[in-house]
């Protein structure tokens, strides 16, 4: 049986993407890199939904609809995040998260 026609392949792929994304969120210091890592997590979820939809779900369209919604919501999220990152850059002259340390306690 072809490896591309198995549910496990896609689940492992999604899990790998999720792990890379989570690692990126925790390890990277640049706001843009963190944003990209968040997108990886969302795409991992999309792949999961599509894979489950293709191989398991009784209704053939649900997973695809959800993936479409995730794309739209992720686009809105990127727009808001980038605009706030621009605002951060204007105030701090840097997009390194370690420079944003005024709030403590």
């Amino acid at each position: 049986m072809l490896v591309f026609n198995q549910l496990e392949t896609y689940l492992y792929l999604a899990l790998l993407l999720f792990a890379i994304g989570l690692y990126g969120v925790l390890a990277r210091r640049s706001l843009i890199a963190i944003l990209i890592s968040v997108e990886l997590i969302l795409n991992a979820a999309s792949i999961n939904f599509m894979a489950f939809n293709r191989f398991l779900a009784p209704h053939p369209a649900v997973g695809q609809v959800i993936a479409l919604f995730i794309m739209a919501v992720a686009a809105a999220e990127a727009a808001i995040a980038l605009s706030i990152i621009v605002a951060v850059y204007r105030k701090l002259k840097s997009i390194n998260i370690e420079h944003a340390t005024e709030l403590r306690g």
Partner: protein
Amino acid sequence: MNVMLFGPELYYLGAALVFFLLSLKRRVEPKADYQIALALAMGGLVVTGLCLCQQGELFFKAYRVDLFSQIFKFALALAFFFVLTISHNLAHIEERYHAEFYLFLTTTTIGMMMLVSSVELLTIYVSLELSSYSLYILVPLRRGDGIDVEAGIKYLLIGAVSSGVMLFGLSYLFGATGSTYLVDILPKLPQLVASPIGLLGLLLALAGFFFKLSVFPFHFWAPDVYQGAANQVTTFIATASKAAAVALLLRLVALGAGYGYGFAQALVILSIISMTLGNLVAIIQRDFKRLLAYSSIAHAGYFLIGILTMKEAGYIAAIYYALAYLVMNFTVFMVISEVAKDGRDLKIQELAGLWRRSPLLSLSLIVGLFALAGVPPSIGFTGKLLLFTSAMSQGYFWLVLIGAVNGTISLYYYLRVIYASYFTDDPSLGPITVSTPIRVLNYALIAIVLGFGVFPDRIVELAKAAVKTVL
């Protein structure tokens, strides 16, 4: 489709459109805009009140309207109205952005209203994001020296990660059950919890809601956001978004009712850590809003006590406490925004001599803080009593004991604030003038906090009827 079923959401959608048009105006008239906003918020209260007894399902059963959701929608409308009443001086938000402030406040209210009615995974996700994204924009709207955008970016990143993690968990739930409807998923929970993929999915899925409620592993954003956002925005986050998160958690748990022992134990641990950590760190805070942020983390632990009992009495207690928390927390935040008229962050020592500067505000402060601490005969005491008795009857003796000890610890730092406002004085601080509407609001809040504390029956009856529609 009956329009009344979707009435509150449609009304606030219309209000959002009005605010959008106002934000496009070339001439900036903050006074006139404020009058319109206040009128629309009052209308919203009436509409949600009229729709209180609606019942039905919408959008292919993805959206359920019942007494439970309508009560919380009324509470959200009330929080929206409350926040607008203290928005008469938005000192820290530039005048040309006032209309946008109202706009995003309205859209986040719509998102939360949809959240409390959602019974399907995609609907939950989309409405959660609608309410969150509006808040992400509201936080950095403050005119400040950099702390606003810092709070904004932290809030956004932690929020985006936790909602991504939640979505990943939801995908496993979808895979394990083949459905996105809670009514299909939750009956399968016992076997889900037994399988690794189901348990992983469930725990990841709860991340997003714990983030909103600022429960222990997802609480990091709360202090920074509370301090960094404008006082009015913080008020909304501290009141409305907590109520919405409690409502959704209740729906998830109540529909399931079969999570089993291990799951309840996990919630017990989270509850204990949240309470203890929140209360201990609050002791050393100097900024009043930061202190309240840690107090909200502690209160998230109290909410969990009611939810983890998985019994009707616990759910009733959680609903009662969520409504009570909304009112008593708002009472304290109203004092903050009235004392800090220029919109600054209030240090605890800046409350010095409040009894002289404004006796009414200092009375409200004392009532609000004692309610948060759970001193009788306030609404907070009754709420805690209901929570603890419901947990006790399920045999969670240690949890109740730790909760009670935590209540005492919290009394210490609340008393510090009261000490600062009654027993210290700073002659350089002049009296605070309180306008007549705010005066009326003060009396009303004190009456609610004390009145429903002594006579809780009506609210408890309402909560009982609401729980019946969910179970």
